[in-house]
């Protein structure tokens, strides 16, 4: 079963994602923000198959976190997907430039999210 590391500062959304992905059968580790994401990624003994991160987060944005992760030897090959609000394409572009593979527009329906993540994990393997 694939391991997914997610970062979302908004608790409702984080739990929605966590619930949905867990429901779909993924193993999920959730970080509270960018900084937390980087730390969790470093500290995890089993490296996640996919990292999914919000962009706007306190302490460290998703981009910054992504950039950090891409600098770390053991983590840099893990695909990163951003969750981004529609209408902030400039942010999406920046995210892709920072090393992300995909983005998923908010708001998302849980089914939709599960479908996309399933695809991405399949692609990453």
């Amino acid at each position, binding site marked *: 079963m694939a391991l997914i590391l997610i970062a979302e500062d*908004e608790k*409702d*959304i984080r739990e*929605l994602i966590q*619930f*949905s992905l867990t*429901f779909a059968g993924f193993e999920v580790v959730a970080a509270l923000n960018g900084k937390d994401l980087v730390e969790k990624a470093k500290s995890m003994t089993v490296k996640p198959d996919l990292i999914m991160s919000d962009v*706007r987060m306190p302490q460290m944005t998703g981009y910054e976190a992504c950039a950090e992760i891409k600098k770390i030897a053991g983590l840099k090959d893990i695909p990163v997907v951003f969750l981004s*609000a*529609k*209408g*902030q*394409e*400039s942010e999406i*572009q920046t995210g892709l430039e920072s090393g992300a593979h995909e983005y998923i*527009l*908010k*708001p*998302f*329906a*849980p*089914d939709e999210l599960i479908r996309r993540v399933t695809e991405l994990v399949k692609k990453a393997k």
Partner: protein
Amino acid sequence: MSLRSSVQARSSGAAIQIGALPDGRSRVAELEVLQRIGRALNSTLDEKEILHLLIEETVDVTPAERGSVFLYDLDQACRLPQAWFGYTPEQADALIGLGQDCAHGIIHRVFDSGQIAVTQNVDLAPDYVQIVPDTCSELTVPIRHGLDVVGVIDLESSEPDAFDEGTQRFVLAIAEQAGVAIGNARRFAEQVAREQAVTWRNEQLRHLLEISRMFGQQHALDDLLDIVVQAIPETVGFNVALLSLVGGNPPLVHRAAAAGIPLADFVSLQQVTQPLDVLERTLKDKYRIGQSYFFPHQQRAEWDDEYTHTVLDDAGNWQEGHWHPDDMLLVPLKDSAGALLGLISVDDPQNGLVPTQDTIQTLELFAHEAALAIENARLLDQTQQHVAELELLQQVGFQVASSLDLTTVLKTIVASALQLVPASDVRIYLYDQLTARFECGTQKSRGDAVSRPMTPPRPDGFTARVVQASEMLVINDALNHELYTRPEAKGWNMHAIAGFPLKRAGEILGVMDVSFFYEHRLTQKELDLLTLLANQAAVSIDNARLYEHAKRRAKHLEALWHINQQLATIRDFDELLSQVVQIIRRYFDYDHINLYLVEAPNGTLILQAHSGQSEVDASQAAHIPADRPKCIIAWVATNNKPLLLEAEMISPVPYPSPMMQLLGTRSELAVPLHIGERVAGVLDVHSYRANALGREDLSVVQSLGAQLSVAFENARLYDELELRVLNRTAELADALKQQALQVDKTRAIVESISDAVIVFDPQGNVVLVNPGVERTFGVSHRQWMNCNLNGFPMPRLASRDINTMRAVFEAVRKAREELAEGKDLVVKTFQVPGRVIAASFASVVLRDLDPLNVVAVFRDITREVEIDRMKSEFIAMTAHELRTPMTSITGYVNLLTTEKSGPINHEQQQFLRIVSSNANRLMTLVNDLLDISKIEGEGLRLNLASESMADIVAEVVVALQQQVEEKGQVLVLDVPTDLPEIQADRDRMIQVVINLVSNASKYTPQGGKVTVKGWCENGHLMLDVRDTGIGISPQDRERLFTRFFRADNAIETQEGGTGLGLVITREIVERHGGRIEVESRLGAGSTFRVVLPLDLSPRLN
């Protein structure tokens, strides 16, 4: 041998003979006589003395009582007693008479026979002539010299038989002695005479030498002839000498020089000339002696009638062998070729005798010398004359060539002709071949000739004939010529005349007439010289004429120019006319100028301006009716033709005209003046001289007239214009005022605009700025003026201001390029330091040819941009903040409805669907607002990739399946999967199709049909979304794509909608380079067609 020794020899010879005498006589006495005679002969050579001594001694010694010696006298050509003894004077005279009568006397017998005659008894001698009565016997012994009997010794005695043989021998010896003595004496005399002759000859030669020398000294021929003639009396021995020369044609003999004739007589002699042929007839061979001719007076009758000689003298005392006053001796003078040059005749010899051979020879010598002198002198004369002529011609050539003044040229030529030939009168008439008229001329007469006045040549006269013949004409015997025997030629005394046409390039410029009022025959040489002169004259006249013509032309042009100037400057018409007339007077030598103007309507001619040599009351001619007969002014005005009026010229009006009579002029020329086609007046000029005006004047006055006509025209136009200008002035003033007002208004408006306004001219210069410029850019509006788009002179400003201006000009330059491509308006936004500027540029056509005046309006939109940015930020923020709770709402509703957290009942399911639907509406609204804000802000950004329309449509169908099914509608899909892929932003294209299909479903009633059809056409992908809905009214169709618009019938459907969907849809399609079309009918449904290019690249920048 000397004379003296010769005599001595003879004497000694005689002594020997005497020494042989045999008988009876005292030998002593005889020897004494012979010795005395011998001494006498030795002591003297005087013949007379010898003969006296001889006869005295002989009579003394012999029985004779008296005796005489006769000798032949050469001078008197007779035998004369030279010495006698024992005769009385009366008896001596009888002896002389005896000597002269050769017919009688023993003496003559002895003379003739040379034999001694012893007459013992005179009575018995038949030829005895008694001189002394008692003479009984006579002894007559001849005296011989050589073989000739030169004399006779005659002794007489009263005793009969007085002379014995001894006496005879003695007298014979005496006679022989005497013969020797006489011979000696004669030889001596001859010697003396010969010496005299030599001396004389020397003297003659000296004279001749002197004469020759004089010849060499280039004396005039007349002087030389005088010298020759004056030398004749002294040298040849004639007191009178006359030298005549042959000359002229036909040749005449005339006296040229004389010696020994009183001057008055010679002058009268000079008047008489003799035809040469008469003289030649007289020179007959029978009179010829050597080269000369001697006409004895006896033969005078023979030649006197033919050759008149000098006045006859009384010939009373003439003797044979002497010169008779009527004798004539002529020596011809012949030149080296033998032609007769003249002759010398002499008279009154100093010795009174007829001429001897010697004399004639000497005279011939003189004649020869004189002939030579004449020939030389003539040759010299000819040469000198030729040289002089050539010099003269050269001088003439130089003079006439150096002068371009026609009068001077003519005078020089005429004077030269008189120097070249001895003519009495030379005149030149100039001729105008065009008018066939003679013009003025020049005339000069030789000092002594009667001067004939210079009258115009008669049309049938000599000069006219020269023109007609166009070649030289010569009349040598004018006295008999028909031209000069006419009555009018009486008193001209014309003897000869030659006329030379002065021709240049075939045109006759004039005629030179050379007249002789005395007998003269023009020689070929004279004609040649005059022809030469005529040619020279023609060239010079031509040159002078050309020069005069050029000079006049220049003057005319100057005058025309001045008139032109006046015309240009003077506007007052009356003053103009008066000025023009004054100018014409100043530049042309017309004596009077009148300017008439036609006065409408009856055409009366009014004298408007007048200028004249003298002040004349012209008021009499101030008004001329147009129909006045025989008036040149009226004629010219009526006929609209120029007219020249000269004496003896065929003319439609009589000469002289009334005006001429008034002014006292003799030539008149009038030309019409025009305004347009109409005759407006007459310009009338006069000259005091007759025939003064010609074709040149015609052309000049015509051009003056033309100039004036132009002036009239101008004046008329000017007047009209002035009127029009007056009328227009008020309008113009009004218009100007209006314009000024408008300008003020415009300026006020421009200045009051808060935006910056800058106007650039086609060269890019800033021509207008308003105060808004300062407000907008913070750069004083003064700094903008005088700037230019390209390399503008940059004022000294802060670098920030300079950068501001640079940015502005850069924007203007770009806009100009676009305007030049034909755009009407260019809108741009650009930044200057600290400011964002929105600018609009428009080209303004001020004049036809410079469309690139650019009006630029700038507005500082910094604040607006900032607000816009804040708005976008706000919307983005809001959207984000809205979305997060929405995500939670929809997410958890989805979890519930998908029963992931456990089963729910149908009613719960229904409620959750309502929540979800409204949440979706809210999300759509948020998304649409975000899109609109993007479209209006930085614009939509596309992430292009190759996409299949079939896939997109399939995805849409999935999204909308539920909505369509809920309305019981049929969704028909006809989008082939093998359609070419398009470059598109997948999400955006899905948004487009969702929008269209969703709308179609929304506005189509329950059970309706929605069709989605895709195909390719002309390189485009076409996608139709057709419904069977309520349709869109035409007026709604126009506003369909404006924000927040919703058609009335759409609102009635109670379907939700923001009124933003179609705006966003169209924006997305257009961003893909496509377009969206709508077809609809109210109540029947609508079709939205998306047209997308398959090859997107050209559409995207």
